[in-house]
């Protein structure tokens, strides 16, 4: 059972969390996005075999939504951190 480090609560079992999927920022002006850009955002994921930035929600804990950098093949979690407005892809 993986250990995930919540930025608030520290190390906890991964079962306390819910995975929120691959991180993909929402286009700031959706009405300006063309169909290709918009459907990329809605439907497509990079689904990398490698380092992935992804959302986690501390469901059985403090209720924080945060990001993790995880290697999708080895399951090694390199870091967990809070979202910030300056964090772009």
């Amino acid at each position, binding site marked *: 059972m*993986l250990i995930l480090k919540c930025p608030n609560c520290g190390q906890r079992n991964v079962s306390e969390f819910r995975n929120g999927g691959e991180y993909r920022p929402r286009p700031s002006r*959706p*009405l300006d996005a063309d169909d290709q850009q918009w459907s990329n955002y809605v*439907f497509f994921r990079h689904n990398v075999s490698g380092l992935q930035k992804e*959302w986690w*929600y501390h469901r059985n804990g403090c209720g924080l*939504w945060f990001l993790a950098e995880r290697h999708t093949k080895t399951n090694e979690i390199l870091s967990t951190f809070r979202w910030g407005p300056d964090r772009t892809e």
Partner: protein
Amino acid sequence: MSNTLLFVIVIGATLMLVIGGAVTIAITLYRANRLIVSEVVLPHLEKVMGARLPSQPVELINRKEEMRFTFEGNEYSAFKGDTIASALAASGIKIFSRSFKYHRPRGLLCCSGHCPNCLVQIGDEPNVRACRQRVAPDMIVKPQNVTPTLMWDLLAPIMRFLSPFMPVGFYYKTLYRPKWIWKVAEPLLRAAGGLGKASHSESPEDTFDKQYLHGDVVVIGGGPTGISAALSAAGSDAKVLLIDENDQLGGYLRIKAEAKDVVDELCASVYAHPNIQTLTETTVTGCYDHNWLAATHGDRLYKIRADKVVLATGVVERPLVFDNNDLPGVMLGSAAQYLLHLYAVRPGRRAVVVTANDDGWDVAADLHAAGIEVVALADERERAACSSAKMESLEAELPVFWRHIVTSAHGNTAVNAATIAPLESDGSLTTRRTRLECDLLLVSIGWTPNTGLAYQAGVEFGYDEDRAELMARNMPDDFIIAGRAAGTHMLEHQITEGALAGRRMASAAGYGDAPTTSEWTFVQEEKKREVTRSSQRTIVKGSSKRFLCYCEDVTDKDLTTAVAEGYDSIELLKRYSTISMGPCQGKMCSMNAVHLCAHANTSTVDETGSTTTRPPMTPISLGALAGQNMEPVRITPIHDWHLGQGAKMMVAGLWLRPEHYGNPTEEVRAVRERVGVIDVSTLGKYKLTGPHVPNILEKVYTNRWRQLAVGRVRYGVMCNAEGIVIDDGVTARFDEREWYMTTTSGGAGAIYEWIQWWMQSGWGDGVQLINRSDDFAAFNLAGPKARTLLKELTDIQLDNKEFPYMHVRSGVVAEVPCRLLRIGFTGELSYEIHCPASYGQHLWEQLLQAGEQFGIMPFGVEAQRVLRLEKGHLIIGQDTDALSNPIAANLEWAVKLEKDDFLGQRSLLRVVENGLKQRLIGFKVNETGPTPEEGLQIVSINSNSKQRKIIGWVSSCRFSPTLNQVIGLCWLPTEIADVDGAEFIIWREERALTAHVHHGAFYDSNGAQLRS
């Protein structure tokens, strides 16, 4: 002359006949006698006289406490401490099971819980390892998979006859034509093969549970290495868990009388140390991410978070594959030692010991000391290679055959002889054979490290050709192997290596300093200088059946055939032949299988690799995995009131809700004609606070919110980025900066998470969202008399002008501080009253009491379903699914595409542009008859071909008592849905049911009741 000659010829012929007959009879009698002696007389003698030895120095049995138990209907006695296997062996039992496929007799092989030969059924629990299960008084033990008895299994000769037709994977190649044959054959094959019988009883006698444990350093294995590691890690101040599957520590030293004092001392240190928690009779069955360990202890499952792990699980003795190696009486050397030393059981009377290491000499010495005749000791090695301390003394006492190996075991249901052969200098067999009579054939030719858990932890192994052993190539920072499992066979090295491993892991966990690299390398070098303990040889070719896999009855011929058929990688070989997939999970066979596969491919063992060991390492009951039944259930504040009324409860997600109180039709009528009240405490309820609440509402809802005045409440629809409806509800503004949002019951948790996500990733400025779902009870009082009733209980101004539809008020009702929301799911004048949950029971009782004079009835979910359907109101998740957008779902009026950016807007613009293909619309059924079930398909039927095409589906449907007909909501192609009155067909039970489209609400279509 001719007469004499004739006479002589006749006499000679007669004499020859007589002599020949006599000789034949004699030979037959001799053979029969031998068979009878070995198959019948000796076993009987054993049963009568018993095979129990006098007191042994390290025996576990308590001879003062005797008990009785039954096996296969017969009564046997046992001492306290005996296992079922040892007690039966002490009574002379040799056959313990019948093999999976061929029903061959099987006896004790490993006596340590690693092989499948002694699996028995106790009561309703199948697949119990007799060699590990202690006898309890009056235990009822039965063999498994026998037809009808262990001794006389009728399937054995049948399987022997059929075996040429049942090679490896036969079920892939046969029994598929004609088509019916597999239907007949499968149940027969399943009945013939298999293990124990699972119980179908509803309430098991056992209770199962789980417990979490934590340790800085967890040491798996309580032999000398493990104990040493535990003591040294604890000495560095780490919190240590020491786990061993036996009921006493000591590991392989338990059988060594000369080591008794050392073992006792080590155990005492362990138990005395405050930092060490010892778990005995506990088996670690799996190692998961970040050293999360699962361990079983009877009916309890431990879930252990280990910071660091030391694996000191030792070794399992490896069987040799030769003709009839599966006969009862053929066992591993260590098995005989366990029986002898721990249980004082004589495994046989005349033994042949076959060995390739010094351990076999210990076995022979132990047997000899116990008074068992060792007919021969055959050592595969040259004399020079042996360094056993017992060598000289044993050579003087018993026949030793250097450079010999066993080629076959002989016997029917038990071994009665063994054949050994000398070896050439290159290791190949010579043609000479020596047959030795015996009733016990012990094999000690090598050891397989017990490293399944290490594989799971990500340790990689390589094969050391010289030592014929697997060695770890790389170990992660948090997992280390030490002791015999790491190829360390000498006690002094085990103690040193264990201590270093313990210190190293403690240091990695933050306690104390680590051993230096040179300390570690020194031990590794010393290890390499140890005498080898395993032979390169795995298979001795012959002419009978030779078994690699005892669990699945796989012979070496099966495997070579499979390789020849193209299943030449070890992964394919495993799956095709099922080797290592039985109860032993490869402990007895995987190394031998890898060797065979390597040899068949003319490759090396290292290149061949091995299959991935997966948890559980030993059989585990489903009950232990389930643990204590923990199924969360949510109940409302007046749950017990519902039960008291005899309500029929229903499950809605995690909630228990009343479906109805006996007569849902009456409940509907009560609401339409008088007044009813329903418990809607399950609704999601959130408090939103702050100056920027309208911002977030504008984003998550499809409609407008900025201008909503204080005291107003509005219905809203939420979509995701795809434009799919995810929830709906009403949100009220109670104050300038305080809002109150409700969601569907099912969405309470999910929508909170959803909005929090958007708030925590940029849209949360000036807003706070708090989930208050459990804080409030909520009751919806609905019906023409609702206002009149409520006036009795509150001073809040309730007249329509003071408190119009879609407004909210706060105040006191029945002495309780409440919020009232005038909304109308049911289509009647209604007030949804929210109060602090602790007052729920009081308020509910007051409402019912005040309503008595008006004929109030409580109503449940079923009545509510009908009431809302009569108004044409949809239910998210019932009338919508993961493809429904709000435009198609009749909620177009709630979608303001022209407003600023909101979730789903961009996608919905596309939907509108593309035009709708399907729409949610109301309908009425044309004929009287059964009510169509929700989920039925709507079809169009081709008039010529009569073929049906699915064009829609029924999402809600009920008989309406108010309208006295069946009404519903359904999804239809827009060309039909757009035409009021258009007819269509619902397909039900092979018949067409005609219905027609109905636009608007079925009842009170202009909302007069609602706004009254």
